């Protein structure tokens, strides 16, 4: 009964926390936060995306504190996020005019502006590079001084047309009215069903990476599958602006620039049948949308599948059930509740015992 011992619980807990610190430091190495920022891009991007807090520096500290556990680092950031007042809302950001780092399309070989591969592991062989064991700072500096940033291209990376625009011009897209409704904010409300699309997109983009990918995959491989084509995947640095606090109504010239965020944005094309004027059925395309902080390509693609699946109300796919998907996908909720099973449950168990023993 040491767990809930009437006396001594506090001391035991202190000792456990001490031990945790020991485990982090026992190798006698202190992990430099700058090193994490510079060399752990993948983990930082994942953690920022799940935390829905874009701050590379904070993410790096959280990763250090969490000893690299994504689950724990996200938890730290989310809790920190709760203490921040909401002071401004940015102007609507447009990825079409953002500076692109990478941009590929699986639907067209030649897209206007061309395929831009950027940085990706897609084209590597997954062989462990033992050379990294002996990599030195000098090697790094040497590489950097030889690396020519390819500006030989004539493409304007800040004005790449979107692939969807092409389909739209061809009349192959299901068209929708512009919807300028103020989006919901899932961090300031409880879910209400049926949900709005803005709610779903927010829940998905801050969803746990593994969960988003697995659920998206489930829609891809099962019966009644929604097999999309990646119309466009782009990784872009989007500048953010806020209104001048005193001159809300002023034109955009008065806005303040507050920095860039790097995002992965995916537009997937999924075929749908649409009745035309003559009562015949046309094949058209509709779009599944995915977006995530940082370079999170698999997650963003999976999100685009889920976005589409959640719009198919009568579909037999398990992931078309929004209560199932949206209630299961959040990392802080799922990991928190599963880990609470480690808490003592003496009282509830005693109550069950009483019911089990009560003879009729």
């Amino acid at each position, binding site marked *: 009964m040491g767990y809930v011992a009437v006396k001594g619980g506090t001391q035991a807990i202190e000792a456990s926390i001490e031990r945790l610190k020991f485990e982090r430091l026992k190798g006698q190495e202190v992990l430099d936060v700058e090193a994490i920022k510079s060399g752990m891009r993948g983990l930082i991007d994942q953690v920022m995306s799940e935390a829905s807090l874009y701050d590379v520096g904070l993410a790096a500290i959280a990763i250090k504190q969490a000893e690299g556990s994504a689950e724990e680092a996200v938890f730290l950031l989310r809790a920190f996020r709760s203490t921040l007042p909401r002071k401004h809302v940015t102007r609507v950001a447009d990825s079409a005019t953002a500076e692109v780092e990478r941009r590929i399309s699986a639907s067209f070989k030649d897209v206007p502006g061309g395929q831009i591969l950027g940085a990706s592991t897609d084209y590597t062989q997954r062989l462990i590079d033992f050379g990294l064991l002996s990599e030195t700072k000098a090697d790094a500096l040497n590489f950097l001084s030889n690396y020519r940033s390819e500006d030989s291209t004539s493409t304007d990376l800040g004005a790449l047309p979107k692939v969807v625009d092409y389909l739209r011009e061809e009349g192959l897209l299901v068209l929708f009215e512009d919807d300028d409704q103020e989006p919901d904010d899932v961090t300031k409300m409880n879910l209400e069903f049926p949900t709005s699309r803005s709610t779903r997109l927010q829940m998905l983009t801050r969803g746990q990476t593994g969960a988003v990918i697995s659920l998206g995959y489930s829609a891809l491989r099962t019966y009644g599958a929604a097999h999309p084509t990646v119309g466009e995947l782009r990784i872009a640095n989007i500048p953010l602006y806020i209104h001048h606090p005193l001159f809300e109504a002023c034109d955009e010239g008065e806005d303040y620039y507050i920095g860039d965020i790097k995002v992965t944005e995916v537009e997937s094309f999924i075929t749908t049948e649409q*009745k035309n*004027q*003559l*009562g015949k059925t046309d094949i058209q395309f509709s779009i599944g949308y995915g977006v995530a902080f940082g370079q999170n390509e698999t997650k963003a693609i999976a999100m685009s599948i889920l976005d589409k699946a959640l719009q198919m109300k009568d579909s037999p796919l398990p992931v078309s059930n929004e209560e199932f998907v949206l209630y299961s996908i959040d990392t802080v909720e799922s990991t928190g509740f599963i880990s609470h099973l480690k808490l003592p449950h003496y009282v509830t168990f005693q109550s069950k015992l009483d019911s089990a023993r009560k003879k009729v």
Partner: protein
Amino acid sequence: MFEQPVLKVEGLRKQFGDGCGHCNSLSVDALEKNYCTTCGTVYACQDLNFEVYKGEILGVVGESGSGKSTMMQCLYFDKEPTSGAVYIDSYKEGRANLFEESSQQKRYIKDMVLGKVYQNPIYGLRMNISAVGNIAEKLISSGVREVEPMKARAKELLEAVNIPTFRMGEAPKNFSGGMQQRVQIAKALSNNPPVLLLDEVTTGLDLSVQANVLDLIKEIQRDFGVSIIVVSHDLGVIRMLADRTIVMLNGKIIESGLTDQILEDPQHEYTQQLVNALL
């Protein structure tokens, strides 16, 4: 014999889709089929009017897609009609259009005033709850808060539909299709509703089981004095059960009258085909 209408349906319409400039401008009869060729809007029920009298069985026959099941779904609030009214004489003296009642009142009506038996028993039964529990659910809805009287009443009803006593504590998921339908009927009857809605209740059952369920329905009608609407695509079923019959096609009532009359002297071309097929 049938002087007093128990249930009255007026101008019931149900469409799926918003319609368009083409079909909105047309009158009911101008649509050749039950959907608009321009926009694809389906007009499942188009201006249905009929009455059900005390103690009678009204048959509704038609092919699939004729709108008869949609009509039943509207009557039991499973679907919301586009327009129209339904009145039941024992509810607010027949003055309230049931479609316009609150969701709370609709629940009350479904528990106390109407009983429905679905073609697929998963819609009418809780498959994992005992047969007795299924009946008790209805009794609980009616306000009963004592266990033993509910058990007794449930057993009585289940006996009336020939469920053996030793199986009453079992969940319907373990029952055969015929037994499931009988439990559904017992459940629908729990609170002695004046009107029972039966939607293709024998479809998919073996012929001998079918005959058994049809006999039971006859018996129930006699013993409980309940008015029944029976929907079926099978004119044989209608012939067995119905005093009067309505024939539906493309969302419209094309013929109605005493069942014998319709069978002997069908007026509409479609009804003639149906009757000929039966012979």
